[in-house]
């Protein structure tokens, strides 16, 4: 990742001592050493974690550290990653979104429907646009009706999923085979799958927006202290709605990629749709973004998602059973989240 800047966080990795207490006589001498404080462990432990896992798989499986395999991990996790990076915005602003998978499924189905009935070109605006509209609905439920985000998106997710099944009558919508349509999901540029490129570009853009724009800063503020954000002149509701719309549109994009890979639109909750919300949020949490809002970063989410992907990939390579993968994932998430509490309690 580029620019792992986290303007909101206090700690700095640089070995430059904080200007200590002005009058504390020996602060200068003591501060010159690079001290690893508990805050550093909490804020940057994830990087060490990811590196350790990476090294372990490199040693344990000879085929792990190959260009193709690494690209493969990114490719396989592109759709999850896109949803996860976007929902990081929602979570940093202090909300939650459980409807990712259903938005993904319904936008994919609507896109496929549009491709069948109106022509392939319609697929692109319809998937992303319908995702954005679903995000808007979530945002309005949360802000205007003051429904708790957890419940609002759980409920809206059920409905979106239901509509998707209704449109497809529970089956598949096969899209007309057209190179224009399958382009995104089945094409490589410079040896890299387009979807992987989209994921990485989107992640970089979202991270830059978060770290270096007024909008990004506002997200941290709203998530950290809503009242203070409002009294500082922010239109808090509007910002919250925007995060949901961005997340919805990103899920639509993920749906577009998925249906482009398979050349169809499916409403099935068996596949990715059923797991998307949980996997994406797991990636966000593993990366160290606080689910209470106000703290986090998109680069963290990328690391989190890729770590989860790395576990699947690496364990497959060394032929460890599926259930072990889930056990390890669960443990990692617990450790990642618990570190914060342990450090704060000191």
């Amino acid at each position, binding site marked *: 990742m580029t620019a792992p800047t986290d303007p909101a966080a206090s*700690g*700095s990795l640089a070995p430059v*001592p904080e200007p200590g207490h002005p009058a504390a006589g020996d602060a200068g001498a003591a501060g010159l050493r690079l001290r690893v404080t508990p805050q550093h462990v909490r804020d940057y432990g994830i990087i060490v974690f990811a590196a350790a896992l990476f090294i372990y798989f490199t040693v344990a499986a000879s085929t792990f550290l190959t260009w193709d395999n690494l690209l493969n991990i990114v490719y396989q996790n592109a759709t999850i990653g896109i949803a996860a990076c976007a929902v990081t915005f929602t979570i940093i602003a202090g909300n939650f979104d459980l409807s990712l998978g259903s938005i993904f499924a319904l936008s994919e189905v609507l896109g496929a429907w549009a491709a069948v009935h109106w022509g392939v070109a319609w697929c692109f605006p319809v998937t992303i646009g319908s995702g954005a509209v679903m995000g808007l609905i979530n945002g309005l439920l949360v802000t205007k009706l003051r429904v708790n985000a957890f419940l609002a998106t759980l409920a809206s997710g059920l409905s979106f999923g239901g509509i998707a099944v209704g449109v497809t009558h529970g089956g598949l919508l096969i899209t007309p085979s057209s190179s224009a349509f399958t382009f995104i999901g089945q094409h490589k540029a410079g040896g890299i799958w387009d979807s992987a490129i989209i994921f990485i570009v989107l992640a970089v853009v979202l991270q830059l927006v978060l770290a270096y724009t*007024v909008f990004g800063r506002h997200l*941290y503020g709203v998530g950290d*202290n809503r009242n*203070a954000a409002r009294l500082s002149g922010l239109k808090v509701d509007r910002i919250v709605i925007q995060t949901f719309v961005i997340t919805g549109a990103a899920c639509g994009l993920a749906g577009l990629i998925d249906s482009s890979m398979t050349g169809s639109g499916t409403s099935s909750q068996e596949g990715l749709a059923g797991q998307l919300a949980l996997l994406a949020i797991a990636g966000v949490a593993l990366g160290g973004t606080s689910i209470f809002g106000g703290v986090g970063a998109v680069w963290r989410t990328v690391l989190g998602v890729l770590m989860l992907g790395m576990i699947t990939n690496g364990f497959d390579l060394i032929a460890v059973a599926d259930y072990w993968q889930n056990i390890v994932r669960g443990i990692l998430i617990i450790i990642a989240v618990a570190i914060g509490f342990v450090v704060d309690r000191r």
Partner: protein
Amino acid sequence: MSTTALPHVRLDSIGKRYSGTKALDNVSVEVAAGTVHALVGANGAGKSTLGKIIGGVIRPDEGQVFVGGRPVRYASPRDARTDGIATISQELSPMPHMTVIENVYFGIEPRRAGIVQFRQMRRRYAELVAEWGFELDGGARVESLRTADIQKAEILRAVASDAQVIVMDEPTSSLTSIETEKLHRMIDVLRERGKTIVYVSHFLDEVLGLADTVTVLRSGRLVRTAPVAEETEESLVAGMFGAAAAAENFTKPAPATAPVVLDVSGLNRRGVLRDISLQLRAGEIVGVAGLIGSGRTELARAVTGADPVDSGTIAVDGTVRHIRSPADAMAAGMAYLPESRKDDGLFLELSVAANITFADLRSVAGRLGVLSLGRERSRTRELLDLTSVRPANPSAKVGHLSGGNQQKVLFARWLLRNPRVLVLDEPTRGVDVAARAAIHRLVNRLAAEGTAVLLISSEIEEVLGLAHRVLVMRRGSITREFSADPPLDAVMEAAFGLGGRTIA
């Protein structure tokens, strides 16, 4: 009061370090049983840190704490509480959705077979309140209370759990003088009954009048511990800062002919504000005095769009503005520094720089809303210098600053905006005497440059010292107006109403 009491709490060579800062460095203090022991020092001197170590909120890196001669190392405030040590922290944090009674008895509810005995709890509460003479509606939800009342609830909670040692971190920073007086009488009673009080305050006159012993801290080091009889305000200030701080005297020009900047008329909010009309001229500082609950904060919030109003008009620079949100008020040129820095003011997880620039990010952003982090840092540094925040580090996390320094950061945010109308609600809450003087100078300078200032403070001296004009509020309306330098007595009388009955 006993002079031969054995030390109830003894701190031996305590050290506590946070990344880059020594909050406490080799501090040894003995707190005798049955005394009031004050801790004084500049913002960031380590008073709260010391209080938290006694109360088991944090653990020292070095040194040993003894309670009643026994070495202890508490794992949590709960541990300390079972040992008879209660803490009332600087940033009050009760359970907001619960009632006062539930808060007071939280964790020590009278139970039978695991079932909480609510009736017994209510009866005990009534007894408790009667015993200590503190009036407070036990059924009120804590979130609906003003800071002073939450303070009372916390004190009741401490005595209800039969604490022997009570650590009070700036308990009076948001109390009016009447309530401070009440609190002090309550502390006297506590002391008479053998309780030990550790009392942190920036009000040196309070410390001298109340405490038996005072410990002065400077930059995390012990300066001295001495009986208050041997100290004066000057000697304490000299100990705290290493030099005497000059007293402030403001010249008050009367800008009677300056144009009216803020014109509020007929403002009403059912049950809260009644027919509020006021005018602020350019360069004028108007103080609002009144008891807690008289509607001062509500007035500030209504004017600045934080709370809705039922009727009334607000005009800025002669134009009637439709103000329905803080954003509208800010667009009209107003700025509001809220009463509670923790609830309504600061972003504790964000950096000092992010906090200061938050209300005016456009000023450090270029096209497309892209922030210039370099510009942000340099603007922040200027403001940190002006407000003397320590450590003056733009990337420090605000939640890690001491209480007074947090308050200065909040003040700096509104300074950056350079508003036409500045509404200040308790602007120097928890700020040490030197920094308070600096903030007063800044307010004065802003006014001299033409800003109209509405100043609310529980500290009547602050209002009288700064304001060109004083409005007195009572039960949601403005009942009196005084022009320059009214006598303190007259203002107090007006605040109480002619009958002299208390509201709070």
